[in-house]
Each structure stands twice: as C-alpha cells, then as structure tokens.
C-alpha cells in the first residue's frame, strides 16, 4: 500500500479474518438476515416496482435538496421545532452541548443514531462531563464494552450470547451470570427503565424528515426511541441533510423498503412521527424539540451526478448483509463508522480518498449490494468511480478529496505494458506463447504470492486459443 492511511486496513482485515468466533457469529447472523429479507419480499415484481418508487423518491428529493431543506426548516419552525445547522461534526456537537448546558442537564439518554456516531457525539459529551447512555439494546451492549457499532442496523451483531452474558455480569452491578437471551433482555429492561425515568435530554436520529409537514420519522422495535423522544423534557434529533423527503406520501414506500431490506420485517413495532413539541393541554412529550441538520461533506457529494447517488441511501444495511467481504470481516475491520458497501462508497467521500480509499478497493465488484439496494444505488459503479479517482490527479469542481493519492509509476507502467500487449496482436501472441513455455514455473513472489498462499499457481497452456483456432482453420473475419 502506498497510502499513509490513518487506519491500517490490511492489519485490521487480517485480524478480523483470524477471529474464528467473529466469523461464526457473523455468518450465522448474516445468513439469517438475508433469508428474512427474501421471505418478506417474496413477490419479485412487487419488489422491483417498490424499488423503482423508492429510487424515484430519493432522486426527486436530492434534485430539490436546498428547497426542501428550507421548507423543512420553515415547517418545523412553525410547528415549534427549533432547527440548527451544522457544517461540521464539531459544530453539530457544540449545538448539543449548548442545549444541554442551557438546561443544566447532565443525563442524556439516546436512541440509535448513526449520524451521532459519525460526529462521535458520545465521546465529545463525555469529555464535557455529560453522562450519555445508549438505550437501544445493541448500542447499550457495545457501549458497555467501549466499542463502536459493527453494523448500522444491528450494532452488536459481532457478539454472541456468551460474550454478552459475561459483559453484563461484569459491568452491570448485582447481575448474575446468565446466557438466556430473555433474561439478558430483562436485565437491560430493568436497568434502562430507571434511566428513561430520570433522563433529562433525549437524543435520537431521524429516518426520514418530511419537508411538507415538518415531520421527523423514526423507525424502531424496542420502544427506547419513543422513550427518548417522549419522556425527557427536551428532545434533540440529529440528521444528515440528505434525509429530507418532499411529501408525506413519500414515506410509506420508503418505510416498506427500509424495514423489509433491513431485517425482513413488513413494518417495525413502532413508526414514530414527530411534528411538534408538547402543545398546551397535552400531558406528555418534550417541551422542546430541536433538530440538528448536519452537512459534514454531504453537500460536496451532491455536486457530482454519479457520486450523488450515494446520498439516496436510507441506511437499511442490506448491502452489508449481502456483501461477501463485510460478512467475513464485520464492521470494525473497516476502521470507520460506516462499514460494508455503503461505507465503502460513503467514507472515502467523507474522509478523503487518501485516508479511506482502500475501502473502495475492498470489493470484488460482485454486485450483490447493488442488486438488493432498496433505492437502487449503483454501488459497484460508484466503487469503480472512486477507484478511478484514486489515480486521477486532475482537479475538477467535483473532485473527491485525496484524488490521485494512489498514482504511482510502477502501476502506471504495468498497465501501460498490459495495454500495449492487448492492443498489438503480435505482442499478444508473443507474450502468451512465452507464458505457455514457462508453464507452471512462475516465481512465487510479488503479486503472485498472495494468490499462491491458498491456491496452486495458474497453469499456462502450451498453446493459446489463438493458435488452436488458427490450426483449426477458423476464419479470421
């Protein structure tokens, strides 16, 4: 690797691949998620129609993004939701801190939000002396173990019940050891109930924000999201600016696609649509609702007609579940917040190719991700585009940060040679003949070493098909 990356991808990959327990946990879980999705979308025709609808909705939203965001802001404000803008992660975190300070609060309860992972909100707030508690069971588990999510939908999927049993026993006071999943859930329920009761600030993500009505939509199964957005006196929601949709009627198809693709559910237990803080006369719900809208590089992604499709994503995680690379590595090996195929197209654009470009190469381009993506993002095409940009030193208004980072003489030369060989028939004949003569005696070093560590070396035929075709007298044109 020529790049000076912050994350040592190769070392991470090797470590993950050697973790037998991780491989077992992941294989089992991913197999099951794939089957569930397949079952809920049994009708292929209906699914394809739904995917086209989802794709069109998301494209339409992006095509009017500034307009819709203004509308969302206006509607939310009219409804009493306070809107805050953040260009950077730091700005977003500061908005949280200011609100928390204003309320002199110190106990934050949180529903699952990947954007808050992106801004490293927990870490930031904890450094400021604020207690932040993740309440989604999976998030709670990994928070106890000081880990980050390994999957965007099922964050603790890399752990099995034994590992969680040990964790609970060690980290939650007065907790007897149990491997019974129902009992583990009950422990979490009991512990977190207290926290819901006492939480001062509730934090959530947003699955869709509806510009037409100023409504924030949240998808969840556990009820912790509803707790966080209903019990504490203040609710702060955070979303990436691409999450806006134009109309309320855009929501039902996206909801079907999201829950079906993510976990094979027709619908989640709760679909929570929040349009205002507590109104006079109402007896519960937060008195203040804040919406933090984060850019963090998304507006740049919008500039490129191909790359902008990345922003269509509804974060269902289906591309992770179907990715042969993700299902063997898990999320942590990628070293960034968003793993798997979506992470591999999004992260290099957010963090720069020089830092995360390797992710775009960690794919066989098998196309399993694009095949299942509910909003039809051409993930493989975008991966390929990012690879091109990794070698492309030319500046352009839509250039990705760190473009050209991989450019190097030896690879350039190799591909020049390859091109010459494949554009000059005489050259081609000569080189294939030579390989035929060398046969199996290729040196097991250099690029071939990786190949031969688990496979026998390719055997070159004595005569090429070109020669054989000629011998058979096949016509040339």
């Amino acid at each position: 690797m020529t790049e000076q990356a912050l994350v040592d991808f190769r070392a991470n990959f090797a470590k993950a691949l050697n973790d037998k327990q991780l491989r077992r946990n992941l294989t089992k879980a991913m197999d099951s998620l794939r089957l569930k999705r397949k079952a809920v979308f049994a009708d292929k025709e209906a699914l394809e129609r739904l995917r086209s609808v989802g794709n069109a909705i998301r494209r339409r939203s992006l095509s009017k993004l500034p307009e819709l965001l203004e509308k969302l802001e206006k509607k939310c404000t009219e409804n009493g939701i306070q809107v805050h803008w953040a260009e950077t992660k730091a700005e977003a975190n500061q908005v949280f801190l200011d609100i928390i300070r204003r309320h002199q609060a110190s106990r934050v309860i949180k529903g699952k939000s990947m954007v808050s992972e992106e801004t490293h909100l927990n870490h930031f707030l904890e450094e400021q002396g604020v207690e932040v508690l993740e309440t989604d069971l999976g998030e709670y588990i990994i928070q106890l173990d000081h880990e980050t999510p390994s999957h965007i939908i099922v964050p603790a999927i890399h752990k099995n019940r034994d590992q969680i049993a040990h964790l609970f026993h060690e980290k939650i006071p007065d907790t007897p050891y149990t491997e019974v999943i129902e009992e583990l859930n009950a422990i979490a329920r009991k512990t977190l109930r207290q926290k819901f009761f006492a939480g001062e600030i509730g934090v959530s993500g947003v699955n869709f924000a509806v510009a037409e009505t100023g409504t924030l939509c949240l998808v969840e199964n556990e009820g912790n999201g509803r707790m966080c957005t209903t019990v504490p006196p203040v609710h702060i929601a955070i979303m990436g600016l691409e999450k806006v949709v134009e109309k309320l009627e855009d929501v039902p198809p996206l909801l079907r696609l999201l829950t079906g693709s993510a976990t094979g559910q027709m619908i989640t237990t709760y679909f929570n649509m929040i349009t205002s803080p507590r109104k006079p006369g109402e007896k519960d719900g937060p008195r203040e609702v804040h919406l933090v809208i984060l850019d963090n590089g998304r507006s740049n992604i919008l500039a490129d007609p191909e790359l902008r499709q990345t922003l269509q994503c509804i974060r269902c995680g289906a591309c992770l579940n179907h990715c042969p690379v993700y299902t063997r590595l898990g999320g942590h090996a990628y070293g960034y917040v968003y793993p798997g195929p979506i992470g591999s197209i999004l992260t290099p654009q957010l963090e720069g190719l020089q830092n995360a470009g390797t992710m775009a190469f960690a794919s066989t381009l098998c196309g399993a991700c694009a095949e299942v993506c509910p909003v039809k993002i051409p993930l493989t095409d975008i991966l390929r585009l990012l690879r091109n940009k990794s070698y492309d030193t030319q500046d352009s208004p839509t250039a990705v940060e760190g473009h050209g980072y991989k450019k190097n003489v030896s690879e350039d030369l190799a591909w020049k040679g390859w091109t010459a060989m494949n554009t000059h028939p005489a050259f081609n004949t000569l080189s294939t003949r030579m390989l035929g003569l060398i046969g199996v005696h290729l040196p097991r070093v250099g690029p071939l070493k990786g190949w031969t560590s688990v496979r026998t070396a390719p055997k070159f035929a004595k005569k090429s098909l070109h020669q054989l075709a000629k011998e058979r007298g096949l016509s040339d044109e």
Partner: protein
Amino acid sequence: MSSARERVFANLHAAMQRGGFKVPETGTPLPLTLSRQERIDRLKTLMENMHTEVYVVKADDWLNVLKELLRQRSLNGLVYGPGTPLAAALEPSWENDLPPLIPYNEEIEQFKDRLFAIDAGITTTRGGIAETGALILWPDAREPRLLSLVPAVHIALLQADTIYNTFAEAMNSERWQEGMPTNALLISGPSKTADIELVLTFGVHGPKELIVLIVD
C-alpha cells in the same frame, strides 16, 4: 464569519449548479385492495404473528371481553385517558373486582412516578393498516403518548371500519398532510428486539403485551 446555515446553503447551491439531476416518474407500488373482512383478517393474522393478542368483538360486547381479559390477569391498575368516548364507556361500568381505573389526568412531570408503576394502559386508535398489520395512534391532550408505551400491557380498541388497506391509503384519504399531530404512531406489536444473536424476544423497553380488540 458566516453562519453554519449560510455555509451549508452556499455549498448546496454550488452543488446544484452542477446539474445533471435525472428524476424518474415516481410511480406507485402494486396496489392492495381487500374486502372489509379480508382487511380484518389480514391485520389480525399479521399482528398475531408479532405476538399481539387480537380479538374480534361485537360492538355491544367489547366491554365484557375487556373485563374478562383483565380478570384473567393480575394487574395493579389500568391507566386511561379521561374525556374520550372510551373513558365514558369505562368509567360508569367499572367493577370492584377489576384492576382499578386510573386516569392520566396530570402532566407527566407530576404523573411519572405513578405511570411507571402501573401495569396496564388502554387507548383508542385512529385506525389500522391491513397490508403490514399495524395500529394507527394519534395521541392527544386527552390520550397522552406514554399510555401506549410505559405500562407493560397495552390494550387498544380498534374500530373495524377504520382498517385501511395500506398506510398510504390511510394518510391520503384522511389528508394527513394538511395537519399532522404532535405525534402520530404506527404500532404493530409489543416492543421487541433481536439485538442478541438475532433471537427475537418481546417486551424490551415498551409493553410486553399488546392486546387489540377489533370492534366489528
């Protein structure tokens, strides 16, 4: 220094200048048109699959069924929202051998201690969705949001006539876009999680049991 808002919008507008937005016609999902009975059946089946207890009851009988269900369980109380037609039906006919009826009649700040200690809550619903099996709730001043969340048992009354084919049909025919409430909800079962080894278990943070009485 310009505000974050100005910088974000400046960036967005610059990006829009690049053009090349292709927006296909939105189209519609495959339609679903079921008869009234099919809608009831489908909602019932799907919600039962999600561990909901569903009873289809006659209009003059639902109160008896409810009382019977409550008698079978040992519950320390049933919290409800006063001032609704449901409340008007419950209040006069309550009997001593039933869990006491507790009105949610204070703001949460005062009521929190009690609410978190009550076993069951009862609510009306605005409608149902046959396609995916779900209840529609629009909590309001009379029926607060936490009634359907905090108590371990949630009982919901659903009028069979308000079961729509799809979510889209419900919102379009009721013109939701003209005015959304503080909080609108879809509920498809008791709270659940599969975060440990994808093993589905019910009753994590929200209700452990959901009981639906479909009034036919």
